[in-house]
C-alpha cells in the first residue's frame, strides 16, 4: 500500500494537486462561458498528468511516467482540441438558459463535497487510514463525481454535458492514481483511448444535432416522452 508510508512532502504534494483539481471543477461549475469550462478541463488534465508522474516518482511505479505522458497528450491536448472544434461549430459562447443560477450551483456543489467528505472519512476510519491522503483522494473522487452529475443536470448545452461526463471520468482517474497506482497498465491505456473514441462519437452526434435537429440544447429535446 503506497499511502501507508508516504513522506510528508509527497503527501502534501498529492493533496495540493487533488485540491487544485477539485477547485477547477468548481470553476467549471461556476462559469457560464463554454470556453472557461474547456480551459479548466485542460488544466485539470495536466494536473492529473503531474499527479501520475509524482505518484510514479514517490511510489517507484515507472510505468506511471508513461501514463503521465499519455494523459498529458490525450486529456491535456487532444481532448480539449476536439472539444474546441465542437465549440467553434456550435456558435454558442455560453449557456443561454440556466436551470440553476451559477451561484446556487456552487452552493449545491459545496454540499456535495461535504457529503463526499463524510463518506470518505467513514471509509477511511473503517480501514484505519483516517487522516491520510486516502481520505482526501476519496473525497475528491466522490465529489468530482457528484459535481459532474450536477453539471449534467443543471446544464443543457451539448458541450456542457460532454464536459460533465469528462469531469466524472477525471475524478475517477485522479482518485485511482492515488488509491490504486498499481492498476494494470493495459487497462489505463485502453481507458484513455476509449475516452478519445467517446469524444469523437460525441462530436459526430453534435453534428447530427445541429444539422438534423437544429438545436444543441437538451431543453429542446423533448419529442420523446412517456
Amino acid at each position, binding site marked *: *500500500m*503506497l499511502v501507508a508510508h508516504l513522506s510528508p512532502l509527497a503527501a502534501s504534494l498529492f493533496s495540493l494537486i487533488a485540491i487544485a483539481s477539485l477547485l477547477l471543477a468548481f470553476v467549471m461549475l461556476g462559469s457560464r462561458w463554454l470556453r472557461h469550462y474547456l480551459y479548466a478541463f485542460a488544466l485539470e488534465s495536466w494536473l492529473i498528468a503531474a499527479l501520475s508522474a509524482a505518484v510514479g516518482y514517490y511510489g517507484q511505479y515507472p510505468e506511471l511516467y508513461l501514463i503521465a505522458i499519455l494523459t498529458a497528450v490525450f486529456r491535456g491536448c487532444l481532448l480539449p482540441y476536439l472539444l474546441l472544434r465542437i465549440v467553434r461549430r456550435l456558435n454558442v459562447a455560453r449557456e443561454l438558459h440556466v436551470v440553476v443560477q451559477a451561484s446556487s450551483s456552487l452552493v449545491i456543489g459545496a454540499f456535495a463535497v461535504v457529503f463526499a467528505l463524510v*463518506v470518505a472519512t*467513514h*471509509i477511511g476510519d*473503517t*480501514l484505519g487510514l483516517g487522516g491520510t491522503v486516502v481520505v482526501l483522494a476519496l473525497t475528491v*473522487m466522490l465529489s468530482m*463525481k457528484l459535481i*459532474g*452529475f450536477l453539471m*449534467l443536470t443543471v446544464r443543457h448545452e*451539448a458541450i456542457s*454535458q460532454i464536459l*460533465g*461526463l469528462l469531469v*466524472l*471520468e477525471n*475524478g*475517477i482517474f485522479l*482518485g*485511482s492514481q492515488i*488509491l*490504486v*497506482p*498499481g*492498476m*494494470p497498465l493495459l*487497462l489505463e491505456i*485502453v*481507458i484513455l483511448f*476509449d475516452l478519445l*473514441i*467517446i469524444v469523437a*462519437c*460525441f462530436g*459526430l*452526434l453534435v453534428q*447530427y*444535432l445541429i444539422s*438534423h*435537429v*437544429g438545436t444543441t440544447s*437538451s431543453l429542446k*429535446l423533448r*419529442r*420523446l416522452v*412517456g
Partner: protein
Amino acid sequence: MVGALLLTIVLAPSAAIVLILLARRPRLAEGLNLAASVIAFLAALALPALSLTGAHVYWASYIILDPFGAWVILCSAIVYLLASIYAIGYMRLLEEEDSLPRFYALFAGFGLTTLVGPMMNSAGLYWIAIELTTLVSAFLVAFERAPESIEAAWKYIIVVSGGISLALLGTVLFYWAGSFVLGPHYDMTWAVLRGAAPQMNPAVLLLAFLLVLVGYGTKVGLAPMHTWLPDAHSEGPAPVSALLSGALLNTAMVGIVRYLAIIEAAHPGPLPRLVLVVLGAFSLFVAAMFIVRQRGIKRLMAYSSVEHMGIMALGFGFGGVLGVAGALYHMLNHTLNKSLMFFGAGSMMRSYQTKDIGAIRDVGRRFPVVGALWLAGAVAITGAPPFGLFASEFTILRAGLRGPQVWAAIVMALLLIVIFIAFLNHFREMYFTPTPAEAEPAPARPVGAWCAVPMWLALVPLLVFGLWWPEAIWQYFGAIAHGLTPSSGVIGTGL
C-alpha cells in the same frame, strides 16, 4: 477446441466488417453480415456443452469461457442471427441503398461487442466492452437521421455514459479493496476478486457493489435508470431494437451477476440481494404503469423489455438454484420472444406507416400469417402458457416464495397480471377494433419472406421450450447456479 470457437465468434463479424467496408456494395453487405451471424451462431451453439468441463481461460487470463458466459453468448448469437435475417427484408424497405453498407458494418460491430462482453475475464476489460456496445449502438439508433432518432441517440449516450462511469468508479473501488489483500499489482479477474472478497473491507466492498449495480443497472435498463431505454429502443430500426433488447441488456446483466457472486462470497448479509430485488420490482412497477397508457407500438415493446429485465433481476436477486435457473431460462425466452415482437412491430410500422397504436387496425385480417405469429408472440410475452416465458416466470416466482423476500414475489405476480391485461388490451385494439368506415386507410404493404421467416424461427423454439425442456439443460443451469452462489447460501435444490 473452445479457443478456436471463441476465435471464430470474434473473427466472423470482424471479417464481415472489414469486407463490408472494403466492398461497399449493399447486397454483398447483407450477405456478409448474414454469413457472419450464421457462423457465430453455429460456433456459439457448441459452447454451453463444452463449457461444462470447467472455466476455460485464454490470452493471459483476459478471456474466459464459463457456463454462464457461454449461455449469454448463445443468447446474443441467436438474436444476432434472427435480426440479421430480418434486417435484409426490413432495411430494403427504407430505400436507402447507399447507406446500407454503413448500416451492416455497424450492425456486425454491435453484434460483435455483445458477443465479446460476456467473454471478458477482467472487470476492467468488461467495462470497456460495455462502453463500446454503447458507442456502436448509439450510431445505429441515430441511423435514420430523423430528429427523433438523433434525440434518442443523444439521450442514450449521455445517460448510459453517466451511468457506466459509476460502474467504473465501482470497478476501481473493487480493485482498491482487493489491493489490501493481494498487493498493489494483480490481475482483476472475476475469480481472483471472488477469492479475495472474504478478506476485503466490507464497507468498501458494499459501496463498490452498489456503484457497480447502479452503473450496469443503467445499461440493463432497471428503473429508475431506464429512461434512455424506451427512446433508444423505439427510435432505432427494428432489427437494431431487437439486438438492443435481446442481446445488449443481457450482456450488461452479466456484470451485475458476476459482481453479485463476488460480494456474496464475502457473506455481506441480505443488503446486496435486497437492493437488486427492489430495483427489479420497481422496474416491473414502472413498466406496468407505462404499458397501461402506452400509445407507441415500439415504446410498448421497449417498456416490456424493462419489465423482463426487472423479472430477470428478481430471479438473480432471489438466487438459489431456482432463481438463477429461472432467470437464465427467462433470458433465452425473452431473447427469442422480444425479437419476435420487435420484428412484428417493425413490419406493422412499415406497413401502416405509423408508430401509433391507435392507427394500426385489423392486423389479423390484413396479415393472416404474420399477424397470427405476432399475436402468438404477444400472448407468450405476457407470460401465458404454453410458451417458455410462463415456465421461467413461474420458476422465478417459486424461488421468490421460498426465499426471504416473499413480498417481492407477490408484487411480481400482481404486476404481471396488470401487464398481462394492459398488454393484450393493446393487441385487442389492434386486431379486433373495427376500422371506422370513413377513415379507410391506405392499403397496407405486404410483409416479405425475409421478415416473416425470423418470426417463425423465434416462435417455434419458444413453443417447444414451453412444452418440453430437456433434463440436461436443467442440470446445466444447476451447474451455473452452484458456480455463482457460495455453498452455504443455497436455498432449495429440488426442481
